[in-house]
């Protein structure tokens, strides 16, 4: 494997993408330290970074086509893992049975990883088709591929993580010649049905009280109960706003996370910590880094040697963009609080590893763009 790397493709290795990914994680380590200086999360994240980097290089060195060929196997393994989560082997944290504890390997969150086999599976199916508009049967198969893991994740239940799966299918359908009029129709229908579904959910009691509160606080944060379910949102906004233009320089003893006003500061609300410590300048720099990373990925997609490779990269890029938006939107108080980590920033080995594997795959595609 190393020989292959050395021999021909090292010059095509996308150093910038790898550098950006490592850079953002390193920046994240600093923020995790700011969030919980007394804890060991930041040290664990450094170890995670090295593991993830090794995985990235290994994946990049592998021929992505063989991986796509094996997609059904990965997909099946993913489903098995998601089923195992629901068995007594799964670990329940904060009411969600989303973790799997396996001897020797340790504890991880399969729903973070299964995105990749889902993207591969969809890319394999839609990549093999020729030209022509998308047929209903193909759409249904796509939905089926997505539905199986989604159903299992909803059983955990982890609605936030489940939401991040939708962009994968959306991007792949969009790039698989679905008619624009259907796209428009779907968006319009969504705008109409979403409030309707919410209303029905409230009336039937399917949407729980705390979930309603989390929506309400977005609409009217000033009048929300700052001690109740609005607490996360209100404190997150205070933390972000407090950072100002340049952040709180050095005054870490009085930071929102150290005084425990900000909940989950090292995971879901890591961006608020970033905002408090580095201010508007730091946050914009981070957003620019994300923008650069995404545009490198999309550029790679444009150069992909085949349709399946292009689809995988775009699916990953789309999923990353949506997840970044969902997480930061929540931190900035205009999206409801759902437990989605910020890619590359939030503490957690599973998330970093999964994202690095995805990026490794993108690099692998790019490295083989001339080998057709």
């Amino acid at each position, binding site marked *: 494997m190393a020989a292959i790397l050395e021999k021909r493709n090292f010059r095509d290795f996308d150093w910038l993408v790898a550098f950006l990914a490592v850079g953002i994680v390193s920046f994240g380590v600093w923020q995790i330290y700011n969030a919980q200086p007394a804890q060991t999360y930041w040290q664990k994240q450094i170890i995670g970074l090295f593991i993830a980097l090794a995985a990235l290089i290994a994946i990049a060195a592998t021929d992505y086509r063989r991986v796509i060929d094996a997609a059904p196997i990965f997909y099946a393994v993913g489903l098995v893992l998601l089923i195992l989560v629901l068995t007594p082997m799964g670990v329940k944290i904060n009411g969600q049975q989303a973790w799997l504890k396996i001897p020797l390997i340790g504890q991880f969150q399969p729903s973070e990883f299964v995105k990749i086999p889902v993207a591969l599976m969809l890319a394999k199916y839609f990549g093999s088709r020729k030209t022509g508009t998308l047929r209903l049967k193909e759409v249904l198969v796509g939905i089926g591929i997505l539905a199986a893991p989604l159903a299992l994740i909803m059983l955990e239940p982890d609605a936030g993580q489940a939401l991040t799966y939708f962009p994968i299918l959306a991007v792949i359908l969009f790039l698989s010649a679905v008619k624009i009029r259907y796209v428009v129709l779907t968006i319009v229908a969504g705008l109409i049905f979403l409030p309707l579904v919410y209303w029905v959910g409230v009336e039937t009691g399917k949407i729980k009280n705390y979930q309603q509160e989390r929506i309400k606080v977005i609409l009217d944060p000033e009048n929300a109960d700052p001690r109740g379910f609005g607490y996360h949102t209100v404190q997150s906004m205070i933390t972000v706003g*407090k950072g100002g233009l340049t952040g709180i320089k050095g005054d870490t003893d009085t930071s929102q996370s150290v*005084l*425990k006003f900000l909940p989950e500061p090292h995971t879901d609300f890591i961006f608020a910590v970033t905002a408090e410590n580095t201010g508007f300048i730091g946050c914009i720099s981070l957003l620019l880094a994300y923008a650069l990373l*995404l545009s490198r990925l999309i550029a790679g997609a*444009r150069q*992909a*040697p085949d349709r399946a490779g292009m689809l995988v990269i775009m699916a990953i890029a789309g999923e990353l963009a949506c997840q*970044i938006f969902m997480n930061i939107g929540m931190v900035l108080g205009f999206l409801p609080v759902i437990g989605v980590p910020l890619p590359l920033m939030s503490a957690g080995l599973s998330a970093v590893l999964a994202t690095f594997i995805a990026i490794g795959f993108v690099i692998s595609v790019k490295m083989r763009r001339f080998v057709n």
Partner: protein
Amino acid sequence: MKLYDQAQNLVTRVGIIQVFAFTLLVILGVRLYYLQVVKGEYYSEKAENQRVRFIPIPAPRGAIFDRNGKILVDSRPTYNVTLSNEPIKKIDVSDRVDDYAQGLQVDRQFVVERINLIKKQPEFETLVIKENATIQDIVWVESHELEYPELRVEIQPQRFYPLGKVLAHVLGYVGEISPKQLEKPEVKEKGFRAGDIIGKGGIEQYYDEYLRGKPGYRKVLVDSRGRVQDELEVVPPQAGQDLISTIDLDLQNAAEEQLANSTTKRGTIISMDPNNGEILVLASAPSFDPNAFATRSSTPEGRKEINQYSTNEERPLINRAIQGRYHPGSTWKIPESVAGLQQGAITVKNSNLVCGGGIQIGTKHTRCMGSHGSPPLGYAITKSCDGYYYRLALKMGIAGLIQMIEDFEYDKRSGIDLPNEKISQTPKSWMPSVVKNEGKWSDIRTVYASIGQDTVVVTPISMLRAISSISVQGKMFVPHLLKEFKGIGAIGEEGEPNYVPARASFGFARPEPKLIEMTPEQNKLVLDGMWGVVNGGGTGAGIRIQNFEIAGKTGTAQNSELNSGGAKDHAWFVSFAPAYKPEIAVIVLIENSGFGGSHAAPAAKGVYNAYLSKNRPDLLDGQQLAKK
């Protein structure tokens, strides 16, 4: 790969996704700009407000001592259970009322009131819900720490009244400022807040400003649960100033004992140094225990006790010395004698007036208790001849009586340093309504007024002041309880933001005494009469002390209008001693007990004996020495 070959504008579609992704990032950037740059200050302040707390450090209140340094009131640290509003601000805690009431052994209604009050306060305020917490209370609070984070145990200075019911009316008590008081603008201006302890009644109220210290505070950093993480600043409290009162506790105890042993156990004894107005004794019975208000007001027992004080028909909360108004009876004859001489109705050379066994006014005959012929002033005082004074008053006229009332300031407050003093009622104050109802002021009213009945009701303190003045050539001193306030040091250095200046020591700002004008001869004539009351076989002869000549006057005030069932007379005795070189004045009033000479005068003797055994043991007569 030849994307261009693909159908449905693949290149455009990839581009759309890219634009879409960037749009999302731009939205985030705009929102960030709004939160951090536009509203940064606002959130910064919000963050500061939620992490910085000011925890007040209560200032110990100044102690109160008697003139010899004996402790009358002090403050001691106690454990209080406090209720803070922050954890319960937004939730309904009505279901916790019973738990609090049972767990802390406090009155249920009180808990409800406390919760209502704390909910109206700004965030982070606390109120005491249980004073003097017991070990059981503290254990209960700590074991429910997670369930009820609003309850805390705090050490706070607690006012303590070691004497109980003794001196209660003079000292007053402390308690929480009432919501009504808080609404007054002058109270708000001084920065009082709900739950603040203030003086209520007595010296505690009158000198509250000086007794009260200035609370300090701890500026602390707290975490989201309100737990203190760090102390940013401490400003120590400045204690209140200690007060030395003019009270002599030994004499006070003697007076309280006399009241307790009196027939009705209702009345008042006041003693003053006639040379300067310093009050040595001020006792009023029945009395109350200030500790009930200061330390037990949250418990069911304490509330019952307090409620009982205010509904009791004997009205133990009334300070009879300054709030009770009684017909003075024959004690009224003393200022009247001075006025008669001043106004020329009688003279030193010819002070004789007819007794006549009484007087006939129209169809009404008003009798004298005896038949005294045509006595001179001295004899009239000694024997308390009513007939003499009927004629004296008629000679002076009602205008002359009103002149006397003004001269002796019966139409004013005495100015004693106690709150809520009442003003006596006299013909002066009654005149307008009597004239309105009856067309004129009739002679019979003048006759009644001459012996301190009918339109004359006076406060014992105003009577003490008038009588004392006669012992010192007419100098009307303002009676007072403050001897000295001790000074207290400054907090911090001058120029510092939290600097609290030192408070200087000061005494009572004694006004110049008002002077009742009379010649030494006139003065002596009245003094001779008063001397005779005790030492010349008069109405107070029973309390004579061999070497310590008391000058006095008995009084027996009818008060049938109070109680048609024929309540007994109020017994008065007004006095000072030694008669011609006074050191101490004592007046006694025992309600509904009967003749002044037999019910009030002995109580005065009890105080004089206490005075002698303390200051002049050599003068105690054999009998008293034997008793000791």
